[in-house]
């Protein structure tokens, strides 16, 4: 069976538009709502889902996602909940790819091999290990490959050309370009330089490139989306979900935000 990430990106390519990737933290705003959140995101325009695995020390994340992690951990959300959520989501959605995103320590504590085996069986399609650069991922690559879980690597503005090539050589699923030097959700995205950087990445890899960090609205999504295969919305979404107390509030929060971004991306003709 083809990996859902590959299928989704080839569909997007056929449609000639950039994809919309959404990031939320598992268990936030409440563990009873995780699956509702995922379905609402798909309903309102997400093409691919990133599900954050809570960690007490998320060093690459800004305050919004830090607080989402803290709320989830306060409600004892761990990897078992992540797996349960993926399984439950798959009952009604076989098509939308899910990438699990997080830090190594909780996964290693659970047991790396055990976790990724269960994640693949539950219906996850890729893993993004934030604090695991290519130098340290050697032990995991074969395991993930055997399970057909795509390992999503980050590229940053600081990544030098030679290193970009080494990362691209290992890439599968998609490459995630971090749009600026900083943490998730920060407010200093300069669209011009991000666009220039994305154009430089063309031809680096056969694998699609998604861009994220700091995209907050339809205009930003459209501007960067014209130069990438997908854009990622995280903090701006997590912020809006924070107060939702039930499934209908979740749906309303997503409905009031995501469709504008979806529509902007649907209007983009990739240049």
């Amino acid at each position, binding site marked *: 069976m083809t990996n859902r990430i590959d299928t989704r990106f080839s569909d997007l390519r056929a449609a000639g538009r950039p994809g919309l990737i959404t990031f939320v933290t598992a268990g936030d705003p409440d563990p009873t709502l995780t699956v509702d959140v995922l379905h609402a995101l798909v309903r309102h325009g997400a093409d691919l889902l990133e599900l954050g695995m809570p960690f*007490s020390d998320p*060093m690459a994340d800004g305050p919004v996602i830090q607080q989402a992690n803290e709320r989830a951990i306060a409600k004892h959300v761990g990897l078992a909940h992540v797996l349960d959520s993926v399984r439950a989501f798959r009952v009604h959605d076989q098509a939308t790819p899910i990438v699990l995103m997080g830090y190594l320590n909780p996964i290693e504590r659970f047991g790396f091999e055990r976790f990724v085996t269960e994640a693949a069986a539950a219906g996850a399609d890729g893993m993004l290990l934030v604090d695991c650069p290519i130098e340290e991922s050697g032990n995991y690559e074969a395991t993930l490959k055997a399970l057909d879980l795509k390992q999503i690597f980050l590229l940053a503005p*600081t990544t030098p050309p030679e290193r970009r090539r080494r990362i691209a050589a290992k890439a599968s699923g998609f490459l995630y370009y971090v749009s600026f030097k900083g943490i998730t959700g920060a407010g200093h995205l300069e669209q011009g330089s991000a666009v220039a950087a994305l154009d430089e990445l063309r031809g680096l890899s056969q694998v699609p490139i998604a861009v994220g960090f700091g995209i907050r609205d339809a205009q930003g999504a459209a501007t960067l989306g014209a130069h990438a295969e997908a854009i990622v919305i995280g903090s701006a979404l997590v912020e809006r979900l924070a107060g939702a107390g039930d499934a209908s509030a979740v749906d309303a929060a997503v409905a009031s935000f995501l469709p504008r971004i979806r529509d902007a991306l649907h209007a983009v003709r990739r240049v």
Partner: protein
Amino acid sequence: MQAQNKGVADRVDYAAYPDARGHFGPYGGSFVAETLMAPLAELAAAYEHYRVDPEFMAELARDRKHYVGRPTPIYHCERLSREVGGAQILLKREDLNHTGAHKINNTVGQGLLAKRMGKRRIIAETGAGQHGVASATIAARLGLECVVYMGAVDIERQAINVFRMKLLGATVVPVQSGSKTLKDALNEALRDWVTNVDHTFYMIGTVAGPHPYPKMVRDFNAIVGMEARQQMLDEYAKLPDAVVACVGGGSNAIGIFHHFLNDDGVAIYGVEAAGEGIESGRHAASLSAGVPGVLHGNRTYLIADADGQIIETHSVSAGLDYPGVGPEHAFLKDIGRANYVGITDDEALAAFHKLALTEGILGALESSHAVAYGIKLAASLPKDRHVLINLSGRGDKDVNTIARLEGISL
């Protein structure tokens, strides 16, 4: 002293660690997000260049002598040794350094490196404030901007050090995330670095963090053991039988251990904060009670819950209150070269008083953990043996804490 009789077959050359990517066996490494990988490589390259640059090393040597006040002496605690009735107790007097602790050995080196690398802004994390003060001190001297991240909880506990940093011109930023303590300050400093990486130098205060920090901070602190080894040979015509140091992140300990690692006859003891006792769950003994994992850019022993979330630690001494430990200590533990033991809050306090009353030295509460274990160890050994304890800092900063614990209002 089980560690001293290693067979020839399993002899390890400790000078060969870490490898080029910062691994000490399975520990260490660079577990950071991609944005920091190139800056870390740049730092590692700069460090590898300057550590063998004669001009850099000469400037470092001058600063150590004239600004830090090195070499620090080895002091024979005659009264204390007599009272204990066992081995001779010696102190390496790192409390006599400028700013009152070993921390400046590291910041004086990293400061010179920051300057060479053309960085104009220094950031640092601090728990008790000692590394923050040592960073602010060096930044002031070199004319660099200094921002210190400190947990909001620690800021309340360590008002004097916060004021010292401000007097030295540093900006102290309260960290409100997570448990609002040292580990969160480290996260926040990493977040600042990732944002301002072009002109900012991150001055990590212990032998943790991603490569090259565990190696670089060790090397800058290794002057302690290098001096101590030579002083032992010059003044006692022998090496110590045991070396003892407290371990939080582990920089003073690695500093004194490093040059003794290849000396098989020297037993090595790292003393962790057992807080209210390991079994109470309220401690900071990562090596004795933790499990291997990944935090703050390196693989090491950590105190975490069953979900892998890092949990709050406890120690009477803020400088040992850290849920991880330098990766080289994790390696030395597994390989059996160093023994890691625990000392409780109460034992450390008793040792603090004992040293004050027998030798007229107020040691830091952190160092008092090493003193407490050193006393125990000395008591078990004959009089012709020598136990060398790293007195990593002075205790003036702790007098308020001690008064409060003992119900005395100042």
